[in-house]
């Protein structure tokens, strides 16, 4: 039970998943900054800017923080165990 809980809280993802998450987070945040600034400036409302930015952040957190199965598609291939007793 505690091992399952630990796994859940840790939320590990494999290396390919990490690369993907890094790319998604960086691109989304930069796009969010630009889009929310332009939208707010066009509509002349600072509420639009920060509201839109907050929505982007919430969506990004949902997409990136939990360990979705999509981020575990390339698990590390460990070599088979070597029997140390053989001489």
């Amino acid at each position: 039970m505690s091992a399952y809980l630990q796994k859940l809280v840790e939320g590990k993802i494999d290396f390919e998943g990490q690369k993907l998450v890094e790319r998604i987070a960086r691109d989304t945040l930069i796009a969010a900054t630009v889009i929310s600034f332009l939208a707010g400036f066009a509509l002349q409302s600072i509420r639009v800017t920060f509201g839109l930015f907050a929505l982007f952040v919430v969506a990004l957190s949902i997409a990136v923080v939990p360990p979705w199965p999509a981020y575990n598609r390339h698990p590390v291939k460990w070599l088979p165990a070597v029997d140390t007793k053989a001489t």
Partner: protein
Amino acid sequence: MHTVYSRINNVSAMLSTCIMGLLAAVSLSTFLFTADPKGTLSVSSIQVFPGNARRYANKNQDFAFVNFNVTADLTPLFNWNTKQLFLYVSAEYESKRGVKNEVVIWDRIVRRKEDAQLSVAGRNKYVFRDMSASFKNASPANYSLKYNVMPYVGVLTYGEAAKTTHPVAFPERQELS
């Protein structure tokens, strides 16, 4: 990025940098909006009465009571980055020895564009007295409506929207009958 905690850590670091960039962009965008609204300010009546200073009941002081009319359209000052306008009417005069005085006699905070059409027939909100307890050495005063634009993010900017065309002299002190 391997655990939930480190993903939250990474995303929040990038997030705070992006927010800083966004705030800098918002504050810089304010410089694109240049507005210099003008209005009119006139003093309809001014009286000087003697009275007692609030703190020291024995100290005799001159108090000036100014009634003024001010109209101004300050809506051009409202852009997306304007949080509120602080308006104030101030009297500027010199003493006989050349000391410049600037006294704020009325102010108002304007938070919405709809409230920025100013048309006020008011009197001084604050006690108008001279540091030297008497107005007999005061030069005629120029009254002006000044504004301070307070942004959501960025630098405070100041401006003057209206001024009396001729200086208004302080009358002789009237004794209360």
